[in-house]
C-alpha cells in the first residue's frame, strides 16, 4: 500500500513538473509582450527594453527556464507583474473562493444528481423518465454563461432576490453555485442512470431479487454500490476541473476566484501569475485524483491498490 502511495506521489510530482514546464515554454512562445502589457502603448522602446531586462525576459529561453527551476526549488515562483506581489500569494488569496464555489456546487450535484439518476434508472423507458431525461439533456446542452445570465436576469433584476455579482454577502453564492451545479447535475444524473440501470439488469441482481431481497436494498446496497466507482471517478474529475477555475461562471458573476484571475493574467501576459495558477491547480487536480484512487477500496472491498487484477 505504502509502495503504491509512494509510486503515485512520484507520478504526481512528475505530472506537475511536466505541466508547469510545458506551460512555461508555451506562454513564452505565444504572441504578446508582458512589458508592453504593463507599460502600455506610449512606452518607448528603451523603456520596454528596460522592463524586459528587469523581468529577465531578454535572457535565452533555456536560461529563463533554469532560473525558474532554481527559484521554484527555493519555493519562489516569482512576482506578479500586474500585482507587484508574490504570484503564489495572489493565487492562494483567490483559491479559497474557487474551492468554496466548487465544493458547494459538487455537493449540490451529488445530492440532486444521484437520487435523480437512480430514480431514472428504476423508471427507465417510462414517460416520466423520458420527461426528466429531456430536462437533463437540456441542462447538459445549455452553456453555463447562458444559464448564468438567465439566472441573473431572473433572480437579480426581475426578482431582485440575490446579488448579481461578487462575493459581498453569503447570498452571493447562490446563483454561481446554481449555475455550475445545473450542468453537473445533468451530466452526473445521466451517468448514474446508465450505471445503475446496467447493474439493475445484471444477473446477480436477478438472483438476489429471486431470493427475496428488498427493492431498496437491491437498489442502494447492490446496484448503487457497484456503480459507485465510476460515479466517484466522474465526480472527482468534474470537481478537479472546477478547481482549475470555473472561468466563465467566475467572469459572469464577477466571482473573485482563480478563473477570473487567470483570464486577467493571460490578457496581461503575467507569466509568473500564469505559472503560479498552473502550479496550484495542477497540485489540486493531481491531489484530488490521488484521493479518489485511495477511496476505491472504501467503496469496493475487491479493489486492492497496487496489485494486479486477478478477477
Amino acid at each position, binding site marked *: 500500500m505504502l509502495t503504491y502511495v509512494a509510486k503515485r506521489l512520484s507520478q504526481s510530482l512528475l505530472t506537475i513538473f511536466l505541466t508547469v514546464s510545458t506551460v512555461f515554454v508555451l506562454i513564452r512562445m505565444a504572441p504578446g509582450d508582458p512589458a508592453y502589457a504593463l507599460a502600455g502603448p506610449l512606452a518607448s522602446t528603451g523603456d520596454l527594453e528596460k522592463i524586459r531586462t528587469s523581468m529577465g525576459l531578454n535572457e535565452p529561453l533555456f536560461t529563463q527556464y533554469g532560473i525558474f527551476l532554481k527559484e521554484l526549488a527555493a519555493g519562489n515562483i516569482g512576482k506578479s507583474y500586474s500585482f507587484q*506581489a508574490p504570484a503564489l500569494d495572489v493565487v492562494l488569496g483567490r483559491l479559497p473562493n474557487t474551492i468554496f464555489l466548487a465544493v458547494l456546487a459538487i455537493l449540490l450535484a451529488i445530492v440532486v444528481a444521484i437520487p435523480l439518476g437512480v430514480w431514472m434508472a428504476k423508471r427507465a423507458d417510462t414517460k416520466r423518465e423520458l420527461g426528466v431525461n429531456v430536462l437533463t439533456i437540456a441542462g447538459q446542452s445549455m452553456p453555463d454563461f447562458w444559464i448564468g445570465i438567465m439566472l441573473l436576469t431572473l433572480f437579480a433584476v426581475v426578482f431582485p432576490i440575490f446579488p448579481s455579482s461578487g462575493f459581498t454577502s453569503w447570498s452571493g453564492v447562490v446563483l454561481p453555485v446554481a449555475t455550475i451545479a445545473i450542468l453537473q447535475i445533468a451530466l452526473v444524473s445521466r451517468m448514474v442512470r446508465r450505471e445503475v440501470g446496467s447493474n439493475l439488469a445484471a444477473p446477480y441482481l436477478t438472483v438476489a431479487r429471486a431470493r427475496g431481497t428488498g427493492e431498496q436494498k437491491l437498489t442502494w446496497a447492490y446496484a448503487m454500490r457497484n456503480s459507485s466507482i465510476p460515479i466517484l471517478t466522474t465526480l472527482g474529475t468534474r470537481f478537479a476541473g472546477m478547481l482549475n477555475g470555473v472561468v466563465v461562471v467566475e467572469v459572469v458573476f464577477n466571482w473573485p476566484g482563480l478563473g477570473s484571475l487567470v483570464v486577467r493574467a493571460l490578457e496581461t501576459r503575467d507569466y509568473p501569475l500564469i505559472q503560479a495558477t498552473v502550479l496550484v491547480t495542477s497540485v489540486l487536480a493531481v491531489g484530488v485524483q490521488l484521493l479518489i484512487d485511495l477511496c476505491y477500496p472504501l467503496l469496493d472491498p475487491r479493489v486492492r491498490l497496487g496489485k494486479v487484477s486477478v478477477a
Partner: protein
Amino acid sequence: MTRSDNVAGGSGFLGEVAQRSLSRRSLLRWGALAGAGAVLAPAVTACVAPSAPGGGATGSTTLTLGLNRSLVSLDNKLNQFDAAVTVQRAVRQALTEIGDDLKPRNVLAESFELTSPTQWTVKLRNDIKYSDGSSVAVEDVAKALEMYSQVNGSFLAPQFPEWPTVTKKDELTFTLDTKAPLPVLSTLMSNILITPAAANKPEELQDGVGTGPYKVASADRGTGTYKLVVNENYWGEKPSVSEVNVRFMSEESSRVVALRSGEVDVIDSITPDSVAQLKSVDGIEIESVTGTRYNQLFYNFRKAADSPMSDPKVREALSYGFDSKSVVEGILGGTVTSAKGVVPQTLAGAVETGEYAYDPGKAKSLLAGLGVSNLSVKVIWETGEFAADVSIMEALVEMMKEIGVTAELQQFEPGGDISSWRQGKAGDWDILGNGYGNQTGLALTNLQGMYAGTAEKEATRDTYHGFVFPEISSKIITATSETDQAKSTALLTQVQKDIWAKWPCMWAFIPNAVLARRARVDGVKLRPINSYQLSTVKVNG
C-alpha cells in the same frame, strides 16, 4: 487508477480502515448529510445574510462604484486609465488638477505662477495634512518628481520634455526650474501625485496615504476591491458620502445588471448598446460629455516610398470612401463626435482643420486620376480598442468595396502581439484602429505624442506609426517652449493645418465619456477626461 487496478481478495490497509473506522455505510451516510447541507446552506444563508439589492449601497451615505478595470494601485506612476482617476484623486492629490473647463487649477498648491520663462514658483497650502496626520513638505514634491522620472515605462515620461528640479525657498515655497521654457508645467503637474517622501518609491505604491477627501479603510488588490472612508484630516470641505466601495467588474453585462439591481450606484465606460438599454430604465440616469480621447483609423507612415499609401492624395481618397455619418449614427448610436481636426476639439489649443466627408464618387475618381487600381489595404486593431470595434471594421470592408478597394482585417486579442505589428516589426499593415487618451486637457500633449516624430525616435520605432515630418515636429517643439501665448497659438494652429494636409487618418472620432448612475446619486459632474470628483457626490435616501 482505473477499475482494472485491482479486484483481488485479502485485506489491504485502506480496506481495513474502511471496515474499522469508516464503513461504506457511514461514508454514504456522511456524504448524504454533507450534500443536504450543500443544498440548504445557500438558501439558509441567503435568508440570514444581507440581501443583495443595495447590498453595497444600503446606507444613505454609502456609494458603490463598479469599475471596468481593476484598480491594482491607488498610484499612477505606470498607467492611468480613466475611471481610476476618480478614485486615485479621492485619496492622493497633486499640486494642480484639470478642472471641468480642462484648465489647470490649484489643489495642494496655493499659488502656481510662472516667474520666469524657465521657472515656476509654487506655494503650498498651509492647511494640508496627509491622512496619517503628517504635514505636506516641499521635499515630498521633490521626491515625487524624482520617483516618477525613475519609473520605466511611465505614461507621463513622454509628456515631460524634461523633468523640473525643485529648489526649496522656505517651508512652503519652492521653484520648479527647467532648462527650456515649459509653459504647460502647471498642467503636467496635475498628474504627479504627492506622497510622503519617506514612503515614495520608483514604482506604483501599494499603500494609500494621501491628502484627498478619503482614505483607504480596506483594500484587496487581488480582486480590485477597496473601501474608502472619510479622511478626518482632509483640508477641504468634508465629503457628504461617508463610505465609498470600489469594485472591479470586468464584464460590462455584469456592471449593467449590478446597476439595474441596485447593487452598485455608478458604472463607467459603457458602450452605446448599454447606454441605449439603460436609458429606458427607471431610476437610472446617464451622464455624457464629449471626451478627450482621440480614436482613429490611422494610416501607416512606414510604407515604402513607392507604395500608393505613401501618397497623401490616396489616403484622402480612401477617407472619402468611409461613411462616417452612418457609422456614428448607425453603429455608435450618436455617442461619438466625428473629428474636425487632428486632435479632439475639446482640448485647449485645438483648431478645426477640416471634416471627414463621405463622397464615394470623388474617392473613385481621385483614385483613378492617381492611377491607383486594385488597391488592397490591411487593417489591424486590438479587440476593445474602442466601442463596437468589430462592427466598425466590418463596415469599413464594405465601404472600401464600394470604391474598389479590398480591405483585409486582422484582429488582435488584448495582450497579443499587436505591439510588434504597430512598430512594423511583425508584419506590414496599412490602417490601424487605435486610440490616444489625454489627461492634460492640452492639444499640445496629443501633438507631441502623435505628430512630433523625429528620425532619431524612428530609429527605435518610437514615433507614432512612422509619422515623421521634421517641419511639423520642429514647430511642435517650438510651441512646447513658447511662453508668448499669441505666438504659441499661431504656431499650434499652423501645425495642426500642416498635419491635416498629410491626411494621417482615414477617420477619427472622439467618444463621449459616459457613465450611468442610480438616480439617488447626485453631484456626479463628469469631466471630459472621464472622471469626476468623489467629494462632491451625494447619495439621497
